[in-house]
């Protein structure tokens, strides 16, 4: 991944042209729930795609449990909303997930969050206090394990970059 962010989307069928994709099942029922896919490119691949920290994607990644928090249709909350800030603080304070990222559509709104865990039966997701979390079993080949955010910074390094991306491009 050379970009700081990727596009991420939940789709009904396996999407063509994705950089990485994996089948998804609803947890804990195991009911098929489509595919989750990532695209490493500038242009939005499909209407529902959201930007995420590029580091969460790993085509060699093991299956994972994912908490996907998305605002209800028509609800738009600023990234700088106090509740979203506090959720980021709680991510830093708690035992780390394997990967986490805000989901963005533009430079100013919180469009959701994704939290990836393995082996602990599902960590509590601080973003689930904002909007309901959908817990999904995601197959191998999509999500990796990322070093926890260094903290304590909760700001974005450039408004287009989903937190916790943690540095400016020159670094």
């Amino acid at each position, binding site marked *: 991944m050379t970009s700081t962010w990727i596009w991420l989307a939940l789709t009904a069928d396996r999407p063509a042209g994705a950089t990485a994709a994996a089948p998804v099942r609803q947890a804990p029922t195991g009911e098929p729930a489509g595919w989750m896919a990532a695209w490493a490119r500038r242009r939005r691949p499909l209407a529902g795609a959201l930007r995420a920290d590029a580091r969460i994607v790993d085509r060699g990644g093991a299956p994972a449990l994912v908490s996907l928090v998305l605002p209800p249709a028509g609800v738009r909350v600023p990234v700088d909303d106090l509740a979203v800030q506090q959720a980021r*603080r709680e991510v*830093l*304070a708690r*035992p*780390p997930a394997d990967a986490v990222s805000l989901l963005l559509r533009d430079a100013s709104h919180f469009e959701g969050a994704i939290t990836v865990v393995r082996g602990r039966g599902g960590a509590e997701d601080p973003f689930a206090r904002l909007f309901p979390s959908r817990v999904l079993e995601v197959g191998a080949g999509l999500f990796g394990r990322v*070093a*926890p955010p*260094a*903290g*304590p*910074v*909760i*700001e974005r*390094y450039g408004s287009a970059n989903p937190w916790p991306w*943690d*540095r*400016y491009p*020159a*670094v």
Partner: protein
Amino acid sequence: MPTTSLAPGAIVPDLRLPDHNGNARSLSDLVAGDPTVLQFYRGWWCPKEQTFFRRLIAFQDEVEVAYARIVSISVDPPEVAAAFRAGLGARWTFLCDPGREAQRALGLRETTDTLNDPYVPAVATLLPDRTVLRAYDGYWYWGRPTLEELRGDLREITRPIGPDWDAPTP
């Protein structure tokens, strides 16, 4: 300072240590190009450290929006550092050096405490390349930096590296 490893102008080595969760981390990755407060502390058991940490806890509410970092290092093992960090309410990374390899490399052993062999309490403010701007010897509590001193150091470091330090105006 009792060592030259934190002398102003020295570059702190790219320490590789486990963090409070046991993940292997490098100092360069934690600094990541930001001004950084690097703190060496004796251990969770020291009342002076507990008091100084409360100062840093208050400071993190500013650091979290100011593109700067805090990194704390001790000889405590990860499980102890994690519990101490959680009890404090800290939201930055604690590095753990229970084998004391980094302590030896830096020459920062507090020789008067032969029971715990802790780090000598010290704080250094670092440039993005880990060059020491200023160091504070905290063996005596009053040697530790005030928040005003830390703010001044971080301003001094940030000003020349921030191309937009002077706010863009028409």
